């Protein structure tokens, strides 16, 4: 079987600290600028106002703005905003991702501080192109005064992808927008030969694993203090 390495955040920090500057990733960005009205139209419905469980309101607002740039809402459909990736991260920071809570406290404040110092506005208030530039500077460790910014950027990107493509049970991938974006046809308990043909795309099932009666009694915890939070055991 494979040996996909799973690292603690602390190890990730160590590893990235060691090599981070040496592996600056070349980035070509082609962004599609849209007005808020365009975005609202694409979303179909307005995202519910954020109520954060773990993050402060200010942190939550900054995080919302970040995920909206990492996986934007555009002509290719809904993005991390509609998936509620920020809400997934917020909830997980009170549970399975609790070891990252402090990194978010420090990192979000540093990011916002950097935006204000270099662009004279909070990150959330910057235009999209400027937000992208800030994120790119974090990613490439070129944000003056923000040591270790690439580590924090990688954490944000990893968690935003989780929040957009994980089982909706965890609070992200709302309305299966992540799975629909990449054409994942969804959880099926049995798969027919016809569902494994080339060039086909089985119809999406749009169900969570825990919608299935068989697994509904052994749900993993989603946030702090829940029973059966496997990620805290041991």
């Amino acid at each position, binding site marked *: 079987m494979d*040996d996909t390495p*799973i690292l603690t955040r602390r190890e990730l920090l160590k590893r990235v600290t060691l090599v981070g500057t040496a592996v600056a990733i070349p980035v070509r960005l082609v962004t599609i600028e849209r007005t808020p009205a365009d975005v609202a139209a694409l979303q179909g419905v307005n995202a519910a106002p954020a109520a954060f469980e773990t993050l402060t309101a200010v942190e939550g607002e900054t995080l919302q703005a970040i995920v909206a740039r990492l996986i934007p809402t555009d002509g290719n459909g809904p*993005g991390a905003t509609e998936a509620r990736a920020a809400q997934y991260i917020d909830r997980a920071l009170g549970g399975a991702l609790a070891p990252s809570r402090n990194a978010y406290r420090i990192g979000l404040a540093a990011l916002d501080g950097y935006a204000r110092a270099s662009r004279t506005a909070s990150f959330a208030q910057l235009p999209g192109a400027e937000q992208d530039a800030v994120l790119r500077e974090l990613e490439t460790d070129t944000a003056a005064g923000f040591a270790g910014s690439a580590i924090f950027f990688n954490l944000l990107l990893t968690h935003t992808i989780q929040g957009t493509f994980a*089982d909706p049970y965890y609070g992200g991938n709302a309305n299966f927008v992540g799975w629909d974006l990449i054409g994942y046809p969804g*959880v099926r308990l*049995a*798969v027919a030969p016809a569902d494994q043909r080339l060039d086909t795309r089985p119809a999406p099932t749009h169900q969570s694993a825990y919608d299935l009666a*068989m697994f509904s009694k052994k749900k993993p915890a989603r946030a702090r203090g829940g029973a059966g939070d496997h990620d805290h055991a041991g």
Partner: protein
Amino acid sequence: MPVDLRRTDVVIVGLGAAGGVAALPLAQAGLDVIGLEAGTWLRADDFAPDELRNNVRGWPQAVQKANREIPTHRPNPAAPYSPRAAIHPMMNAVGGTTLHYWAQSWRLNPWDFKVVSATRARYGASRIPRGSTVEDWPFGLEELEPYYDLVEREIGVSGKAGNINGRIDRGGNIFEGARAREYPMPPLRGCGFGDMMTAAAGTLGWHSFPGPAAVNTRSYQNRGGCVYHGYCARGGCHINAKGSTAVTTIPKAERTRRLTVVTEAHVTTIVVDSNGRASGVNYIKGGTEYFQPASVVLLASYVYENVRLLLLSTSRAFPNGLSNNHGQVGRHYFSHNQGAPVSALFPRNLNTWYGLPAQGVAVDNWADDNFDHAGLDFIGGGNLWVYSDRRPIGAAGMSTFGRAPRWGAAWKSFIKENADRANTAYLQKTTLPYEDNYLDLDPEVKDPLGYPVCRITADYKENERRVAAFIQDKMAEWYRAAGAIAIERGGIGTMGPTTHAYGGTRMGDNRETNVVDRWGFSHEAPNLGVLGASVMGTSGARNPTLTAQALAWRTAEHLVKSWKTIAS
């Protein structure tokens, strides 16, 4: 002082792939067996198809004892330690890692048993890489064949034979050694992507075939056939189609009423008497320490814990660790050369969202000594394996093959088009043991009980690097023949904790270089047996589990036949 328990005939430390198999022939022979397992029972409804929990957050390994004892790693004694893995590669549970493994159930090829003599004969002694401590096994494939056969039937292995008593069948692996009969079940079904790769192998003149798997393809021994739902890797089977020992040999042994399973039993030491014989084991359960006396001890945890428990079990007779008076415990360690992957991007949807890692297509033309190495600068090779297994978080994290950034609108556009158009091959390659690759106790890092964890000192050598480069070329060739428009090669990495670890208690006739004899019993403490891949001296180019299981059955059968000699 530990609480003394009633004596038993055999105590097995660890009820996973190997211990879970050995329990059956012992119990069937009427021996009283206590199976000590650090984990708990897990059931079908524990195995939800949940990528975040299973694959990203490392459940169920994360809840287990092993996860508090993750080995440390350094490539060599002068190098800094590698970042410590957060998740142990294996898990504790009744059935162990057979619950959530890929279940690929290969027999080794004939060459793997005689690497030294066959290399000398064909290419000359100088072709054995410098510094390697590789030896021939004390027996050949034909000795292990009956035990492979027994295990294939007990746990239920599906596949297609390529060589039945010397008669070659091109439907199976034409390079495999002779087997007595066909697999008990036909192979897992093909899929569109697999058929495409099969056709491409044909255009190259290579022989491709479906791989063997401990996965039912029809109803077998009251368990149903695979339903290809896509969450087999690190997930466990929700219908028990996977032939884990937790649903095959262990319950069957329990039904004899000779096997008693003790869960959440944390073994700390193997106890040795004044004559240098193993007298039982100490374990902790629920905060209480127990001593389980036994006539015979079978050590069947994973490679790292087998070595660690021996080294921690010091006594007057064995001041440097049990069975270590020749300094061989922890030596001849190697981990499978599974790195150096190759990924490909195709101009069409592959639809590999479903299936399982064992549902795939193999090419063995470039494995072992199946091709002429006369003009090459390495020995051994690799098995090429492509399969249908893809989940959304993993797909979203795919390489963009240099065609897009890794976030933002351009990335989103790329991923929307290509999430279902990439594939990564699994390339298992020959790895040899070397003088300076070994396991010992970490001088600083301890587990919560205060015992040192296992330390790995190991790195790939020139032979492994050359094999990897050669095999990556072959895989790229195969993908291109199938129409790939972009190819990406990954690095070989280093030799940190892995699911494919070998050695440390190697099996062989020479007690100066091996810990256990040809039957799997200690050269130094004759009533101590060792099970698992820690006894294997070569890796082959394929998954180790079935070989570890065949060896475990053979060791158990030998114990039954030699009970009076070994137990008294």
